């Protein structure tokens, strides 16, 4: 067997130029398949990580998936909001332990701005029930004196190179339109949160009153013409929030979640909806799983194409190697040895391709990870291969070995038919 392995290695090395292209295509296909699998896994992980300890997400009646997307993952724009009175009602409900009202819609250089209360820093949980931690500074004050204070997520601070004391000008809406800036009311960074690996990292946090304050002289998404209220004067206005986008609700007892959900749905003053994060996530996965399956299928096909290339390359080289087979037969190689030799060659190329593909993926996730996180809020942080991925790698190697049996079987038949005659 070692003799065969040695011979197979030398033989493959001799035809390294033809084989290296095949190897490369297998490597790329492997990286693609694994990459699709990994992104899928990491996205799910990220989403699951983002909500911990929240029993219900309450918002205007509509789709539960969009509500989750903007309330928890801060993706997309909120299409409807709820009245402040509804949020108040929730906060005072006897089953409710805490509420976090969230007001969204503004942005800062592409990052979402979230208006909330100071409770956010005590009640918000992510990952394995971890609470938020400030890596620098303090939380915003949440009083009228501290209206224009902002706390940055770790990614915002790092990307935009902001630290406490820096001043920010927020933009109305998420698109960053010219002339839609709240330039007259700049905010001051008072704190930076430690990294969480969730949407919090990409968020600029301000108080609900702050949100109110920058919009007092706005109407219908535009600054009111001829009306401009300077920051000093804005404090004289009633800055009680009028509307919020969603409310995260923590219950005193998880057992009450269904009862609370019904209570929310039956709220008389406004059509509301309470969504359990886990259920909404399942719904979300159902929506995306069709796309995921198509992606997986396409990448599996790419792997198949790579392996067909391998078979074609080895088969094409086989006719030129019939003398070689005769020589091996002459020195005592059995047709079975010839079969193994060819199969080993295919196996070697596949294994090398799979290893290269794995390395390529590791490099890519290390290189593109930060960019993907900044752009899409998905932290690609898997370094080691998990069991599923190792299973996929093994499956590719298995498929490669099976595919290599095609040229191997042909070599076997050729070596039986040719014997010692050096036909060419």
């Amino acid at each position, binding site marked *: 067997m070692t003799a065969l392995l040695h011979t197979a290695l030398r033989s493959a090395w001799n035809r390294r130029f033809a084989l290296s292209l095949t190897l490369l295509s297998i490597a790329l296909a492997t990286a693609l398949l694994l990459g699709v699998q990994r992104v899928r896994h990491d996205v799910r992980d990220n989403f699951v990580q983002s909500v911990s300890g929240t029993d219900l997400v309450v918002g205007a009646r509509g789709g539960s998936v969009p509500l989750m997307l903007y309330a928890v993952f801060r993706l997309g724009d909120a299409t409807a909001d709820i009245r402040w009175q509804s949020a108040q009602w929730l906060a005072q409900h006897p089953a409710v332990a805490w509420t976090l009202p969230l007001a969204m819609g503004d942005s800062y250089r592409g990052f979402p701005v979230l208006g909330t209360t100071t409770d956010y820093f005590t009640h918000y949980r992510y990952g394995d029930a971890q609470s938020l931690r400030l890596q620098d500074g303090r939380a915003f004050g949440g009083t009228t004196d501290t209206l224009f204070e902002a706390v940055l997520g770790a990614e915002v601070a790092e990307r935009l190179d902001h630290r406490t004391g820096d001043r920010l000008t927020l933009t109305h809406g998420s698109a960053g339109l010219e002339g839609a800036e709240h330039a007259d009311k700049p905010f001051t960074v008072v704190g930076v949160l430690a990294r969480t690996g969730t949407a919090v990292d990409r968020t600029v946090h301000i108080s609900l009153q702050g949100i109110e304050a920058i919009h007092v002289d706005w109407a219908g998404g535009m600054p009111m013409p001829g009306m401009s209220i300077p920051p000093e004067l804005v404090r004289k206005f009633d800055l009680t929030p009028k509307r919020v986008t969603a409310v995260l609700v923590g219950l005193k007892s998880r057992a009450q979640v269904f009862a609370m959900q019904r209570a929310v749905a039956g709220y008389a003053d406004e059509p509301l909806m309470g969504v359990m994060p886990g259920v909404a996530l399942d719904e979300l996965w159902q929506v995306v799983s069709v796309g995921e399956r198509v992606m997986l299928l396409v990448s599996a096909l790419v792997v198949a194409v790579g392996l067909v290339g391998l078979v074609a390359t080895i088969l094409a080289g086989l006719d030129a190697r019939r003398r070689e087979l005769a*020589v091996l037969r002459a020195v005592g190689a059995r047709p079975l040895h010839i079969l193994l030799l060819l199969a080993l060659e295919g196996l070697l190329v596949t294994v090398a391709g799979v290893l290269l593909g794995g390395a390529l993926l590791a490099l890519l996730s290390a290189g593109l990870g930060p960019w993907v996180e900044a752009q899409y809020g998905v932290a690609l942080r898997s370094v080691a291969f998990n069991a599923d991925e190792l299973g996929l790698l093994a499956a590719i190697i298995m498929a490669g070995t099976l595919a290599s049996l095609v040229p191997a079987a042909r070599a076997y038949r050729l070596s039986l038919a040719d014997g010692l005659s050096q036909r060419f």
Partner: protein
Amino acid sequence: MTPAPAEPTPVVALHDLHYRWPGQAGAGLRVPTLTLVAGEHLFLHGPSGSGKSTLLGLVAGVLRAEAGSVRVLGQALEKLGGAARDRLRGEHMGIVFQQFNLLPYLSVIDNVLLPCRFSARRRARVLQAGSLHSEATRLLGRLGLPEDRWQKAATALSVGEQQRVAAARALIGRPELLIADEPTSALDAERQQAFIDLLLQEADEAGATVLFVSHDMRLAARFARVASLTELSGVAA
């Protein structure tokens, strides 16, 4: 024509051999009888297409006769399975082809040592006398291949040099039977004789019986025994 001698086990003994080429009409190859005793050098002459290579294939055990018997070192090949015939060939026979004897991706030394990778017996025989490498270089030296060629890739050698390497490979581990199929036809005339001299000398040294086939009668001079396949078989070529 030599009648079957009543000696100890002959190295090769063919009896009433009949082989038909697959998919071809006609009588095929017939060899009523042919025997090689230990140490014998037989020059088997036959024109192209007379079945020389087929006969070698039958003796080497890669082809199976339709009828009759092929005995090598006392073993009836027709009674052996494919694996056993392959083992017999690997352990007891050295084969030199007309050309393209070497695996292009192995060094000269590795080509010479190839039989030792497939045959434990030949490997053991070499190791009795010394190391694999020293035996390979000894044979290459005896066959006159310059030392600067030993570590080269097989493809870097001239045809004549390649044939010497092939001879060294056929002889390593002292197989009992050396089969040579027109090994000099790719060489120029003045080198042919020198090659045959070296080959026979080393075969004697190794105690190998030689079965040498060629269409070129001029090469027969150094052989103790010369036979014509056409006469042996009586087949219309």
